[in-house]
C-alpha cells in the first residue's frame, strides 16, 4: 500500500514539474505560433545557472530560484529581438528550423562552459530530509516542495490568463494577432513577453528539478521530448491539456518505473501513440474546422 502511495506522490511530483515546463511551450506556441525546440535547452540552462550560483558562488537556493529564471528570461528577450524577428511572418518551417538551430547552439555552449560531467546540488537545509505523512508514509520534503511550486504556478497562471488584463491580451493575441494589433495592443511587446514567460517557466522548472536530478548536458534533450509527449497527449496549445498530459505522463513514470521497469523507457511513447491513434488532436485539443 505504501508503495502505491509513494508511486502516486511521485506521479504528482513528476507531473506538476512537467506541467510547468510544458505549459511554457504551449504559451509560446499559442502567441508566437512557434514550437520552441530550444525550450528544453532553456530548462537546462536554468539548472546550470542554479548550479553556478549555489555550487560555485555559494549563494542560497532561494536566490538562485529568483535570479536564474530571470536570467534565462532575459536571454529569451535577446533571442527574440536578435533572431526570431527575422522569421516572423515567414513559413512555419523556418521557425522550426531556427529554434532547432538554437537548441544546437545552447546545448553546445552549455557543454563548452560547464563541461560534460554530472553536477549535483543539495536542496536547501529547510527542505532537506523526509517528512512522515499521515498514514506513516515517509516522503522527501523537497519533493513535497516541488509539488507545492507546481500547484502555486498552476494557480498563478490560471489567474494570469483568466483574471488579469495582460493575460487576456495574450489570449487575444494568440487567437488573432492582427485583431489585437488593431485594438491598439502592442503585439511586438506581447510576443516578446510571451516568449520570455515561456523561457522563465522552463528555467524555473530547471532550478526546481536541479536538487532532485543530476545536472548534465543531456537533461535538456530528455525534458523537451517529455514536453512534446505532454502537449501531444494533452493537445497543442491547450492549458488544461498541458495539465492533463503532464499528469498522465507523471502517472506513466511514477507507476511504470515501479511496476513495468523493462518497458518503462518506451511507455510514454506508447501512451502518445495511443492518443494519436484515438484522438489525433490530443485529449483536450480543438480540431480546427
Amino acid at each position, binding site marked *: 500500500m505504501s508503495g502505491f502511495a509513494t508511486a502516486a506522490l511521485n506521479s504528482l511530483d513528476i507531473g506538476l514539474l512537467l506541467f510547468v515546463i510544458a505549459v511554457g511551450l504551449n504559451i509560446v506556441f499559442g502567441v508566437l505560433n512557434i*514550437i520552441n525546440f530550444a525550450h528544453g535547452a532553456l530548462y537546462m540552462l536554468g539548472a546550470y545557472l542554479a548550479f553556478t550560483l549555489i555550487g560555485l558562488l555559494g549563494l542560497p537556493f532561494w536566490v538562485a530560484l529568483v535570479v536564474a529564471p530571470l536570467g534565462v528570461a532575459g536571454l529569451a528577450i535577446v533571442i527574440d529581438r536578435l533572431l526570431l524577428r527575422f522569421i516572423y511572418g515567414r513559413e512555419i518551417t523556418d521557425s*522550426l528550423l531556427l529554434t532547432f538551430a538554437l537548441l*544546437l547552439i545552447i546545448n553546445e555552449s552549455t557543454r563548452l562552459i560547464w563541461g560534460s560531467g554530472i553536477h549535483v546540488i543539495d536542496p536547501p537545509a529547510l527542505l532537506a530530509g523526509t517528512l512522515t505523512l499521515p498514514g506513516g508514509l515517509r516522503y522527501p520534503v523537497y519533493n513535497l516542495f516541488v509539488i507545492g511550486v507546481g500547484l502555486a504556478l498552476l494557480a498563478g497562471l490560471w489567474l494570469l490568463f483568466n483574471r488579469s488584463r495582460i493575460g487576456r491580451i495574450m489570449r487575444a493575441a494568440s487567437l488573432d494577432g492582427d485583431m489585437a494589433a488593431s485594438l491598439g495592443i502592442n503585439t511586438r511587446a506581447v510576443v516578446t513577453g510571451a516568449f520570455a514567460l515561456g523561457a522563465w517557466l522552463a528555467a524555473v522548472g530547471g532550478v526546481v528539478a536541479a536538487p532532485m536530478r543530476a545536472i548534465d548536458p543531456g537533461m535538456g534533450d530528455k525534458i523537451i*521530448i517529455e514536453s512534446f509527449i505532454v502537449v501531444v497527449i494533452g493537445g497543442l496549445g491547450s492549458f488544461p491539456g498541458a495539465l492533463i498530459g503532464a499528469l498522465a505522463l507523471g502517472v506513466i513514470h511514477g507507476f511504470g518505473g515501479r511496476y513495468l521497469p523493462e518497458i518503462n523507457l518506451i511507455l510514454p511513447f506508447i501512451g502518445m*501513440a495511443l492518443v494519436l491513434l484515438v484522438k489525433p488532436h490530443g485529449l483536450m485539443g480543438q480540431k480546427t474546422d
Partner: protein
Amino acid sequence: MSRVLMRALGVVGAAAVLAGLVAVPWVAPYFYIFIATEVVILGLLAASFNLVFGYAGMLSFGHAAFYGVGAYATALVLLHLQWPLIACLAVSAVAGAALALVIGFLSVRLDEVYFAMLTLAFGMMVFGVAYQWRSVTNGSDGIAGFMLTDFAPGVGWVLDDPAVYYHVVLGVVIVAAALLYLICRSSFGQVLRAIAQNPERVAFCGLNVRAYRLAAFTVAGAFAGLAGGLMAPFLRVASPEMLHWSMSAEPVLMAILGGTGYFLGPFVGAALFVLLETWITGFTEAWMLVLGVLLALMVMFFRRGVFGTALAWLTRRTGDRS
C-alpha cells in the same frame, strides 16, 4: 543562352564531377579517400531527407533514426550471419523503410508542427532503445568487431582496402541517387511537390494526401537506411550516436546548405558540410556550435542554399546576356 545549351553544359558538368569522384583514390592524398567516402554516403542521407523536406514539404527532425537503424542492421548481419555486403545493404534499406512506415504512420496524421515534434520524439525513442537494450545493441558501445564479407557471392573485391570500399560506396550511391532522381521527376514526385505547395488542393483532386506523405517518408527511410548500411562498415561500428537527434541535424543542415529546391543541392551541401567539419574540428571542439550558428544564419539569410543562390545568380547572368 539557350535551354539546350544549358542542359548540355549540365550534362558535361555532371560527367566531369563523376569522373573526378571516381578518380579520387588515384589523384588525391590518401586521407581524402575517407573524406570522399563520407561525403558520398552523407550526400545520399541528405538527399533522402530532402525527398521529405524539399519535395514533400515536411520537416523531419528524426531522420537519423532510419540511418542509424540501417547501420545497426548491416552491423548485426555482418556480426552474426556474415551475409555478403549487398544483402546486408538490402536488409538496411528494408529496416529503414519499415521503421519509417511505423513512425510515419503516427506522424503524418497532423500538420507540419506536429510532424517535426513527433519525428524528433520517436527518433529519440529509437535512440533510447538502442542505448538501453544491451543484449542486442551492446548499449553505448554499439556493434563493433564485425568482419567485412564479399560484396556479392563470388566477387573478390577487397573491401578492407579504403579505395575499393570507396568505389563500392560510390557505385551503390550512384545507383541509389539515380533511382531517387527518377522518383523525384516522376508523376509521384510531381504530386509530392504539389502537396508541399497546397495539400488541400491535392486532396480536392481526389488524392489521399496522408498516404502520399507516408509513402514519401517510407521511401526516404529506405534510402536513409541504405546510407546507414554503407556507413557502418566504413566506421567499423554502429553506435547510438548515429541515432541521436544531433545526427538528425546533419542532413537538415546539408540540405539547407546546398539548397532544398534542387536534387543535387543536398549532395553539394554534404560536401561543404564534411569539408567544413574536417577543417573546423582541426582547431576547435565546438563543431556542433558552429553547426547551429551556420544553420541559424542559413535559415535567416540564405534560405535557398549555396547551390540555389549560385544557380539563381548564374541563370540571372545568362538571362541578362541573352
